[in-house]
């Protein structure tokens, strides 16, 4: 049997092969991860809820299925049939962002107001992973209601970046990224409203995919901004991201915004290389404020892709400057409406008051943290009579312009290649007092959500202070296969020299 410690940093594909060959059992794998959580999570605090019993049950079920499959394969005529892709998640331990409803498992959304909320249903993506036999270890930390870029806004304490415990893991899916980086889960799910999968993926040195809006069901995803939210995987490898994406994507009759189209064979496309692909570089993504180390890492990766046969073309995003203000009108507007249901009437926190209005407002005063309140106020203001045209409606118009910028850019470029974040992971507390500085963290990612496009963050190197750097690939709608193909090329060309073999010390040694 392999060294269990090594297994904590293996990919889904590697582990699936070992499970398939009977080298390890799903139970052993789950137990190894539960031990790793016990060992390192006190330092990292990725998990809000660990469901060991549920995980071990799922693992036992996975072992039964694996045995059945092996038996069926051995009695077959072929010597060893290729392992079907749909079985690749069987027995694989994963971590679920606490924004996704899980039947019978507390779902807090990082908020005091849902501290004791136990949903009677699971999100469609969770159902699909359950159906694929993946083993859910628990629910991981996040910025409250997915609002934030550092996971410092959680009502249940901050999550630390496994690469440097004094730094943030990014947000809002900080727990999802930290868990994968620290060997506490093989993969995780996050949600991305303005970069919440891609930024923490970059900050923690993992792959993070934000799919095209409508390809992954939002049913059971606790809404932040409905027209921007999308669930996406965080993984160790690009191929793993493709695998998880294939497992969770596809039309869901419970979500009217889910696209009624089949998911293509994404994994098949991933290895096709970049020869002949046109990579668009837009100067708007490389301007003022970008850390030189990141600029260099991204451009160096682009040069490697050129050597692999990709062509670099110039692209322009003339309205990109407006993405941030537009985002911070639309997202809070939708949030103010989506979060109005937390009123203490039916579930969650309730602070009594002398009348119903007092009960509403006291419940919300006690239940929501400052960032959530700030955005509710922003959104309420932007939607209110007399300001709607000037703010919300205008923002929607500019959103259309940004969408057209992308359409225009994709006339000449197959994908855009950009940085994920202007800086490497910042220190805990560094931007807490300055929301605008915090908002700037997502400046390269949020336009992708405004346009509903797929974007992937892939590690492309390390900064001099040995913090991970991510590269973002953006493609036209439904081009997940293509963006992952470029990401895979980045991984292959830079990985060997710069990323492979590196692991956060805390994850290896504990603390």
């Amino acid at each position, binding site marked *: 049997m392999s060294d269990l410690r090594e297994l904590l940093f293996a990919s889904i594909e590697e582990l699936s092969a070992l499970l398939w060959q009977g080298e390890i059992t799903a139970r052993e794998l789950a137990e190894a991860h539960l031990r790793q959580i016990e060992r390192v999570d006190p330092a990292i605090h990725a998990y809000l809820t660990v469901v060991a019993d549920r995980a071990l049950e799922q693992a036992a079920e996975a072992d039964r299925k694996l045995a059945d499959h092996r038996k069926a394969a051995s009695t077959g005529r072929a010597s060893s049939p290729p392992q079907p892709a749909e079985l690749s998640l069987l027995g694989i331990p994963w971590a679920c962002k606490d924004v996704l409803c899980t039947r019978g498992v507390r779902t807090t959304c990082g908020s005091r107001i849902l501290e004791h909320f136990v949903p009677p249903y699971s999100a469609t993506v969770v159902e699909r992973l359950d159906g694929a036999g993946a083993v859910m270890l628990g629910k991981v930390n996040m910025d409250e209601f997915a609002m934030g870029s550092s996971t410092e806004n959680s009502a249940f304490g901050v999550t630390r970046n496994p690469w440097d415990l004094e730094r943030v893991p990014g947000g809002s899916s900080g727990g999802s990224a930290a868990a994968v980086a620290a060997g506490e889960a093989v993969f995780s799910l996050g949600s991305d409203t303005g970069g919440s999968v891609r930024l923490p993926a970059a900050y923690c040195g993992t792959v993070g995919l934000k799919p095209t809006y409508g390809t992954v069901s939002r049913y059971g995803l606790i809404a932040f901004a409905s027209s921007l939210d999308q669930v996406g995987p965080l993984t160790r490898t690009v191929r793993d991201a493709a695998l998880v994406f294939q497992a969770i994507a596809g039309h869901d009759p419970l979500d009217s915004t889910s696209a009624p189209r089949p998911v293509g064979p994404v994994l098949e496309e991933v290895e096709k290389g970049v020869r002949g692909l046109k990579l668009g570089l837009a100067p708007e993504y490389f301007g003022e404020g970008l850390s030189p180390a990141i600029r260099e890492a991204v451009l160096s990766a682009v040069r490697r892709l050129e050597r692999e046969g990709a062509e670099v073309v110039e692209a322009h995003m003339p309205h990109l400057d407006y993405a941030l203000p537009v985002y911070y009108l639309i997202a809070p507007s939708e949030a103010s*409406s989506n979060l109005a*249901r937390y009123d203490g009437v039916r579930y969650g926190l309730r602070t009594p008051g002398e009348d119903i209005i007092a009960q509403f407002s006291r419940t919300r005063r006690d239940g929501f943290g400052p960032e959530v309140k700030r955005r509710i106020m922003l959104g309420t203001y932007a939607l209110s009579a007399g300001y709607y045209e000037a703010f*919300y409606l205008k923002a929607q118009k500019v959103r259309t312009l940004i969408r057209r910028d992308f359409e225009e850019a994709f006339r000449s470029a197959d994908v855009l290649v950009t940085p994920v974040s202007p800086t490497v992971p910042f220190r805990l507390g560094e931007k807490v007092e300055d929301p605008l500085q915090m908002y700037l963290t997502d400046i390269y990612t949020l336009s992708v959500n405004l346009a509903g496009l797929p974007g992937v963050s892939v590690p492309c190197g390390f900064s001099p202070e040995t913090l991970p750097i991510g590269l973002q690939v953006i493609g036209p709608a439904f081009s997940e296969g293509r963006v992952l193909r470029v990401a895979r090329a980045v991984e292959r060309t830079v990985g060997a020299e710069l990323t492979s073999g590196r692991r956060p010390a805390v994850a290896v040694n504990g603390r």
Partner: protein
Amino acid sequence: MSERTGREPKVPSQQQLPAGWEAVIGLEIHVELLTRSKVFCGCSTEFGAPPNTHVCPVCLGLPGSLPVLNEKAVEYATRAGLALHCEIAPYAKFDRKNYFYPDLPKAYQISQYDLPLCKNGYLELRVGGKVRRIGITRVHMEEETGKLVHSTATIVGSQYSLVDYNRSGVPLIEIVTQPDLRTPEEARLFLEELRSIMLYLGISDVKMEEGSLRCDANISLRRPGETRLGTKTEVKNLNTFRAVERALRHEAFRQAAILEEGGRVLQETRGWDDATGATVPMRTKETVQDYRYFPEPDIPPLVLDRAWVEQIRKALPELPAARRQRFETQFSLPAYDADVLCQHPAVADFFEKAAARFPDAKTVSNWVMGEILRLLKATGEEPAVLGAHPEWVDHLVGVLELVQAGKINAAAGKEVLEESVRTGRAPEEIVRARGLEQVGDEAKLREWVKQAIGTNPDAVASYRAGKAQAAGFLVGQVMKLSRGKANPKVVGELVQRELGPPGQGS
């Protein structure tokens, strides 16, 4: 100067408005659609189930739940729009109407704001022999809220309130009229006509007492000839058709009293108190709600296929106005009869089925309006029950034939019909069993006639003095003697034969 006069205005009961004033009335009507499942989830819409048994994460607005539009509800709303001569939008969308209330699980109601499904229609009303065209501004779709049950009469002052979410998510249409109605009576007639149309379309059971038809009314006054609108009030809690008319009349007189004293009508929402017969202030418009409407991001815009709309248009049933017209010409019925018969499709159907089998349509009409509707009222049944009892047509036709053939008289016929309907037995059987056959035997009848003449000398005298009506009295006496079984027509002839023409003293 006080804006409201403290005293209640005098409101005459007859159909009139305060002298010198014209009322401008517009209605907002909510109609619950009769789909089997809710508008955004698969829960049942059945009325009267135990509280919170027809609920799911979607209609409870639980975190992460998402709405999925019920196509049947769109079809029903389209049907309503077409029946009201509306334009059906090729592209409609849903919006969120945001406000806090404990019965509103998501703290927003999914509704339609700037792009409703149907707009610019009208409804024609016949008022006092004239046709009045009332404009329909829009018909839009939305979802029901839950229902609050307070520990005392109102939410204010209640120790606690309970919420039943069975109703949450039931599909609604809101019909908004132009301020084209001029009298409280017109408002009631409009509502009754609208109710009939909904029944004909089969899209709602439109029961005001169960809340599946609800009406709010806006009313202002102005001097006749003026085009500017006065300050309006909105009247809520109108739970019966009668309440609509009474409340509006009360409000017209209240406003007139204020205006005539030189006061100003306060723009406000008022409730109708049926017990006191007065409107009472609920809240002033100063605290107007800002609903912060914005497009519902969870539901893609509604793009209606023209062919689909045309298909629905072609499949529209004959509507009450057309049916009334047809009844008047096809059956030569008076307008009044056609009105009464056509109010409910089940009644009209019933009439048509009976009229197809009995030659005298007016007689059928009389019996349907008189006896059948009376029987329904007595048992408290909805007219729809007629559809479930096709054998009642047989009973009515059977009775009419017996009466026509002179086998029973009309009075006995009414009894027989009632018993037929009640027991399901055939009229002839009942007549036989109860010995109700009309007595046509002249010898027997003559005996009774002679007896009546002998015991009523006063009537005989006045008949001979020229009072023809006295013969009627004598016929009545004979009917009494026969215990209702005499043939009144034959008796009349016999009386004349015995006494000769009136005014000829012997």
